[in-house]
C-alpha cells in the first residue's frame, strides 16, 4: 500500500477503535480516558499490533490535544471565579497539595527515580481530574449540594497550581536544575498574576478581538490564537499547555461559551490522540512489575483525597455525609496526571517505568474515582447510622 494510503487506513482504524471504546465507556457510565490508554497500550510497543508511519501526525496531534485540554479548562472559568475560588479555598488547596503530592513524591524517591521522578510522580498523584469530577457531580445530581462549591474551589486551586507547576516541571525536565526551577516559578507566578489582572480588567477586550458570529471564523480565530500563544509560551519555557490555559481564562462571557462549543469536538479528538500516544509509548510488559506500587499509591491517595475533601467541607460547617461525599468526589485522577507523565516521558528525563506506573495508577484512579463517589453515600449511611444517636 502507498504510504499515505497506509497512514489513512491506520488513522481511520485508530479513530474507529477509539469510538468503539468510548461507546463501551459510555455504557458503563465511566470516563473514556482509561479505555483510550488501554487502546494505546494494545497498539503500541510490545502490544498486540504495532502501528507505524503515523508517528508524525499522532505526535503533533497529541501536543495539540494537550493545548486544547488546557484551553478548554481555562475557558470554563472566568477570572472572577478563579480569584474568589482561590480566596475561599487556599487553605484547603494547600492541604490538598501537601497530602496528595507527598505519596507520589515518596514513591518516586523510594523507587530511586530521584528528585525529578519525585516531582513528576507527586504531580501525577496530586491533581484530580476536573473532567471526571464535574461529570460525576452532574451525573449524581449533586450540583445543588452544599459541599459541591467546596469541591469545585479545590479543583480551581489545583488548576491554578498546574499553571505554576507545569512551567517548573518543564524547566526541571530540561535539566535546568534548582535555580532554573526557581526562575521558572518566579516567571510563571508573574505571568499568571498578569493574566489574571488583564483578564479581570480587560477580559472583554480579548474576547472582542476573538469573537465572531461565524462559526468558521470563530474556530480559526480561537484555535489559531491558542496555538500561537502555546508556541510562544513554549519558547519562553512557560509550557505550551499553560499558555493555552491562561488564554482560556482571559476569554470570557459569550465568547468563551461560543469558543467552547466550536472547540469541544476538536478537543475530544485530539485529546483522545494524546492518551493513545501516551499508551503507545508505554510497553505493556513494564506494567506488571510496577502494579504493586500503583495499587499502594491508589489506596493511599484515595484516603488522602477523602481526608482533604472531608477536612475542607468540615471547615464550611458541612455534616459528615457531606464531608465524605466531598472527599470521595475528589478521588478521580485522569487527564492531567497523564499530561504530567506525558511531558516527563517526552523529555526523556525519567525512567520508562514511571510512564508504566503513571498509566497503571491513572487506570485504577479513573475507574475508582466515580465508584468511590457513588458508594461513599450508602457506606457512610450504614456506618454512621449504626452509631448511637447523639
Amino acid at each position, binding site marked *: 500500500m502507498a504510504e499515505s494510503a497506509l497512514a489513512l487506513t491506520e488513522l481511520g482504524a485508530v479513530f474507529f477503535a477509539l469510538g468503539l471504546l468510548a461507546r463501551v465507556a459510555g455504557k458503563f457510565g465511566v470516563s473514556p480516558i482509561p479505555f483510550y490508554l488501554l487502546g494505546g497500550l494494545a497498539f503500541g510497543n510490545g502490544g498486540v499490533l504495532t502501528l507505524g508511519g503515523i508517528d508524525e501526525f499522532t505526535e503533533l496531534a497529541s501536543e495539540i490535544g494537550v493545548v486544547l485540554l488546557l484551553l478548554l479548562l481555562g475557558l*470554563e*472559568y472566568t477570572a*472572577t*471565579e*478563579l480569584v*474568589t*475560588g482561590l480566596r475561599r479555598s487556599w487553605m484547603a488547596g494547600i492541604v490538598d497539595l501537601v497530602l496528595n503530592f507527598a505519596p507520589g513524591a515518596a514513591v518516586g524517591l523510594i523507587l530511586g527515580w530521584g528528585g525529578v521522578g519525585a516531582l513528576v510522580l507527586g504531580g501525577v498523584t496530586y491533581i484530580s481530574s*476536573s473532567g471526571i469530577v*464535574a461529570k460525576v457531580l452532574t451525573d449524581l*445530581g*449533586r*450540583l*445543588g*449540594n*452544599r*459541599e*459541591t*462549591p467546596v469541591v*469545585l*474551589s479545590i*479543583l*480551581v486551586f489545583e488548576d491554578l497550581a498546574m499553571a505554576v507547576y507545569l512551567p517548573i516541571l518543564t524547566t526541571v525536565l530540561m535539566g535546568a536544575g534548582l535555580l532554573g526551577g526557581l526562575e521558572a516559578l518566579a516567571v510563571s507566578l508573574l505571568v499568571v498574576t498578569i493574566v489574571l489582572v488583564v483578564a479581570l480588567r480587560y477580559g472583554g477586550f480579548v474576547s472582542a478581538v476573538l469573537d465572531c458570529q461565524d462559526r468558521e471564523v470563530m474556530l480559526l480565530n480561537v484555535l489559531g490564537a491558542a496555538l500561537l500563544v502555546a508556541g510562544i509560551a513554549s519558547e519562553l519555557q512557560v509550557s505550551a499547555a499553560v499558555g493555552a490555559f491562561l488564554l482560556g481564562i482571559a476569554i470570557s462571557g459569550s465568547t468563551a*461559551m461560543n469558543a467552547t462549543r466550536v472547540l469541544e469536538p476538536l478537543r475530544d479528538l485530539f485529546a483522545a490522540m494524546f492518551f493513545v500516544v501516551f499508551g503507545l509509548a508505554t510497553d505493556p510488559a513494564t506494567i506488571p512489575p510496577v502494579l504493586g506500587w500503583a495499587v499502594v499509591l491508589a489506596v493511599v491517595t484515595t484516603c488522602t483525597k477523602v481526608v482533604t475533601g472531608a477536612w475542607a467541607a468540615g471547615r464550611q460547617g*458541612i*455534616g459528615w*455525609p*457531606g464531608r465524605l*461525599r466531598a472527599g470521595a468526589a475528589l478521588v478521580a485522577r485522569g487527564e492531567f496526571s497523564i499530561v504530567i507523565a506525558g511531558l516527563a516521558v517526552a523529555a526523556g528525563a525519567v525512567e520508562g517505568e514511571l510512564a508504566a506506573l503513571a498509566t497503571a495508577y491513572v487506570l485504577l484512579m479513573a475507574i475508582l474515582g466515580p465508584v468511590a463517589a457513588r458508594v461513599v453515600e450508602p457506606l457512610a449511611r450504614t456506618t454512621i447510622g449504626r452509631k448511637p444517636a447523639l
Partner: protein
Amino acid sequence: MNVEVTLLPGIGVRKDFALASGRRIGVITRKDGANELIVSRKDDPDATQASITLSNEEAAALGNLLGTPQLIAQLGEEHRDLPGINTRQLPIREGSRYDGRALGDTTMRTKTGVSIVAVMRAGQVQPSPTPDFTLTAGDLLVAVGTADGLDAATKLLGNN
C-alpha cells in the same frame, strides 16, 4: 427572603434559600443557560433530594404557577386604597358556555362594569386580554370591579 447566591466555578451560579421546614430550595443557572430546580433532603440539608433540569419555557411556567397568588395579592393590595374596588379570580369551568368563545362575547364590561385585567392559563399570565381573546375551560380571569359588579360577573360566567 434571604436568597443565598453561591458561585459554582466552571458550572454556574446557585441561588437558594432555607424554607421554614428546614429544607433548602433553589435554582442552579448553568453557564450554558440551563436551569436546574434543586430541593434539599430532609434528613441531610447538605444534600439534594431532587435536581430537575428545566427548559426556559418550563421554568417560566413554573414561576408563573407559583407567582400567581402573589400577583392576585398584589392586585388586591394596589386596589385597597380605592374604596369599593375589589379584585377577584373567576374561573371558566369545564362545560362553561364561554369555553371556546371570545372574551368580548361575555359583554362583561357592558353588563357588570367589571374589567378583566388578566387571564391566567396553564401558569402563564396574559395581561390586558383584548375582546377577541379566546377563552378555554380552566382559564382564570382576574377581574376588578365593585363587590356588586363582581357578584354579577360571577353569575354571568355561570359560577355560583
